[in-house]
């Protein structure tokens, strides 16, 4: 008796697997039978996916660029011209004793001049001006690395009598961060809207497919097909659309990356940076494919579910 029950279960599971196999093949067949319609649907979905993805990639690169330009949270204190290097060194020692200071580097006019000379264009200007005049124009600078709230430290440093000007780059960084947060939110809103658009595109395509196979579905239902049996091929259809659109969107982004990578690297090199445009890593690309497939599956599921509810016998 138990063997019989197990046999029935195994048989049902086998039939269930069989139908999945059939649904996969049948849904792929439906896509391939109408290549142009399929391409159009996939193209529209791919653009809807590529736009927020592209913006996300750009924001990621801007954030990285911001990090490279200002990785530290240094506060630069430009001392008054009258402050001699020895006095600057003494002031640095005083600052190092503070609890909110992690480190202090003294950049003497001599060192600043050497850094400037490393840049060929500026080296020519220094030569034209004369090294002594250039050195005299440069103040000593203390590069202070904060150990806590750098804003409070910057305010405190501004009160130093030796300080001519305090440059707190964290302000710039905070502004960039605020822009990036805003950009991130824009990407989310855009992704939600365009994701909804992609969902509707799949839904509408599957709805049309359901309409064209209404009679077949009706026959299957009258023969006793469960909702799952009817729904399955359409779910696979939606998933294929999503996967193909995700793949195409990744392809579009890769093409954009190939077009922009070299000129941007060249531009960065002119500013002395080795910054390179970064696309999506394999894990992220896999996530995009999975998400797009699920989006298609969901769109198809919603439409098929709605159709199946409509075909149930009414109250009489």
């Amino acid at each position: 008796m138990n063997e019989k029950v197990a046999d029935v279960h195994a048989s049902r599971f086998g039939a269930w697997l069989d139908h999945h196999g059939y649904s996969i093949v049948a849904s792929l067949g439906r896509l391939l039978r109408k290549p142009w319609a399929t391409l159009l649907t996939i193209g529209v979905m791919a653009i809807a996916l590529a736009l927020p993805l592209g913006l996300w990639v750009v924001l990621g690169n801007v954030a990285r660029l911001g990090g490279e330009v200002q990785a530290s949270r240094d506060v630069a204190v430009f001392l008054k011209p009258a402050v001699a290097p020895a006095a600057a060194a003494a002031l640095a020692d005083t600052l190092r004793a503070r609890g909110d200071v992690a480190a202090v580097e003294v950049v003497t006019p001599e060192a600043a001049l050497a850094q400037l000379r490393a840049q060929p264009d500026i080296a020519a200007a220094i030569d034209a001006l004369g090294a002594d005049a250039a050195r005299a124009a440069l103040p000593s600078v203390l590069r202070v690395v904060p150990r806590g709230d750098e804003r409070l430290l910057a305010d405190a440093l501004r009160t130093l009598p030796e300080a001519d000007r305090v440059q707190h780059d964290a302000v710039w960084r905070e502004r960039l961060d605020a822009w990036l947060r805003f950009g991130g939110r824009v990407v989310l809103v855009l992704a939600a809207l365009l994701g909804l658009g992609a969902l509707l595109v799949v839904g509408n395509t599957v709805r049309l497919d359901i309409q064209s196979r209404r009679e077949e579905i009706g026959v299957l239902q009258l023969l006793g097909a469960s909702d799952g049996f009817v729904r399955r091929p359409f779910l696979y259809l939606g998933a294929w659309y999503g996967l193909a659109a995700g793949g195409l969107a990744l392809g579009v982004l890769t093409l954009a990356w190939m077009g922009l990578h070299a000129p941007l690297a060249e531009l960065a090199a002119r500013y002395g940076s080795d910054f390179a445009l970064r696309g999506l890593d394999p894990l992220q690309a896999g996530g995009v494919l999975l998400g797009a497939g699920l989006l298609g599956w969901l769109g198809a599921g919603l439409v098929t579910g709605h159709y199946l509810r409509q075909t149930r016998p009414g109250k009489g």
Partner: protein
Amino acid sequence: MTVLRFDNVSKQYPGGHAALAGVSFAVEAGEMLFVTGHSGAGKSTLLRLIQLAERPSRGAVLFGERNLAKVRGGGIARHRRGLGVVYQDHQLLMDRSVAENVALPLVLRGMKRAEIGKRVRVLLERLGLGARERALPSQLSAGEQQRVGIARAVIAEPAMLIADEPTGNLDPTLSAEIMALFASLPERGTSVLVASHDLGLVRRMRKRVLVLDHGQLADDIAPEDLADE
């Protein structure tokens, strides 16, 4: 044992048209009967209520012990899997072969592929369709298509077979063959209910006849009384 019972069943469509009004009858296990009446008498509505394609406005339809009014969700599909249905227009899936069409009820029941193949071949041979196993329905004659529809309806040995004008498009010889096949099903425990307006055919079969007239059960004629009607 009663397989099907209509208990004072009425069906009214939106707009007020009464397709059935206070219809009551019962079908026993292994019984074959006909439902006849003019076009619009309510035959198709009656069949649709049995298939749970619609629900009655009043009264109860009981299939075995089950009140179909209470069947919801997955229960609807399960109920339909217990029926075999033959349609006048065959309702075959045109993009699937004869064998695939006939196999569908078994696929829906989750039977093993090997067992399905065996059963389909045996039945198609019995119905003279063995050589057409791989053909598409569009490659068959109307008579062959109807036989495929019948094969699909009986392959899972349902508790009840319902047929809506099953011989409507067929010549008399083929009609008689199909009726003979239907008449053999009660021996295997399957009840058969055939809706037909072909009174000649109904008389020849000498089975119980329900006569519908404007949605009402006008007569319930026993086989022995048929010759006198």
